[in-house]
């Protein structure tokens, strides 16, 4: 068994990050989930939020993700989402402007609502960085 978790953070158009980590925290539709070595096999729907990845060598970093899923099996973790933004690449002002833009949208407009949640996730990621 590998020493740490083998993690893949995948967006629809590219592999954003892959490597070894000690701990992953992600937000699912049932609430936050923390993955450590030896976690039971799991498949869960991930919602828009911030993913925290603690690595041994590179420190921990955050990423803002769109809705997707997280799967854990045999210490291999795959996080999949349509859009993934690493916190270090997010422009705080742009993110906040996006939140302002979408916060007036119609609650029934699901596309705007998910854009809003995604913008909020990006703001959270950049603020916690």
């Amino acid at each position, binding site marked *: 068994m590998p020493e740490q978790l083998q993690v*893949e953070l995948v967006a*629809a158009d590219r592999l954003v990050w892959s490597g070894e980590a000690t701990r992953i925290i992600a937000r*699912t539709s049932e609430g936050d989930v923390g993955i450590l070595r030896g976690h039971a*096999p799991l498949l*869960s729907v991930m919602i828009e939020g911030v993913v925290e990845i603690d690595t041994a060598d590179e420190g921990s970093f955050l990423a803002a993700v769109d809705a997707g899923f997280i*799967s854990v*099996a045999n210490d291999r973790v795959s996080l*999949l989402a349509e859009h993934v933004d690493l916190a270090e690449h997010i422009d705080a002002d742009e993110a906040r402007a996006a939140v302002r833009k979408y916060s007036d949208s119609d609650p029934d407009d699901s596309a705007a609502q998910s854009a809003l949640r995604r913008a909020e996730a990006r703001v959270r990621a950049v603020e916690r960085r």
Partner: protein
Amino acid sequence: MSSTMWATTSAKPTPLSAKASSRRSSLYIVRCSLRDLRDRIDSVKNTQKITEAMKLVAAAKVRRAQEAVVSGRPFSEALVDVLFNINEQLDDIDVPLTRVRPVKKVALVVVTGERGLCGAFNNNIIKKAEERMGQLKQLGIEYTVVSVGKKGNAYFQRRPYIPVDRFLESSSLPTTKDAQAIADDVFSLFVSEEVDKVELLYTKFVSLVKSDQVIHTLLPLSPKGEICDVNGVCVDAAEDELFRLTTKEGKLTVERDIVRTPTTTFSAILQFEQDPVQILDALLPLYLNSQILRALQESLASELAARMSAMSSATDNAVELKKTLSILYNRQRQAKITGEILEIVAGADALA
């Protein structure tokens, strides 16, 4: 004797002036002047530079298109892995996107390019679409078109008798946003039961000189993530191939690689945190998006290859034309010099 445009001096009309004469008048044997010929040669030279440049640009873009396909693989592979896993555990999955209904109406998503100068690329896929529409009409099945790409849009806009649901445009390198726009439209058409089947018509990239126009059934999705064409021939997503540009013996070729097959050794029984139906409801749209994105990328690669080939022919034609014109120019130049010498000699004779 002079060499202006309207002189009628040469005894035998050259091929070019024969054409010119039939255009202008049947009385005159018109000859293009040296300057006109020179201008034409320059113009052809410029055209050649442009077509050569366009070919190189297209070649560079094909590489980028290929890289985009390769980057998108981890996503599709991980999705297929999970879908496979879910299918191992569940037998009957009933999710809106996989529901098979008797087909009364079909949505045809037709992927064309944004620009021309790519040979028969756009025409071929539009012809395929017309063919399919004819087939459906014969079977008594209604259809509606979702047109993607400026060229297709222009075609369908000129023909208002073809029912079109939406006109969409794509960016120069297909993004998830483009795929999303198509997916959203198609999703709502299918789930609202306005259409019972969605077919995706795009150009598959086979090689730098060959492409295939294919029709894939996009919806209903097969729960295992199989990719089916209209004849019901299905390819297991695990065996799906992606194209890859490589060099073989110094020449650029296209090879197709098989997507990584999910290994059964590593398939653990995943515990579902949510209801399997909820999970599939979240996953299948992602799968739908990735399928559409792949089709857009393949189509772009085919378009670029077609443009490379068309521009290459255009360059070759320009070289030929320049050669012909240069020969003509030289002949005329020599005739002019000969004429002037004759004048001088005649004049000297007259004086002597």
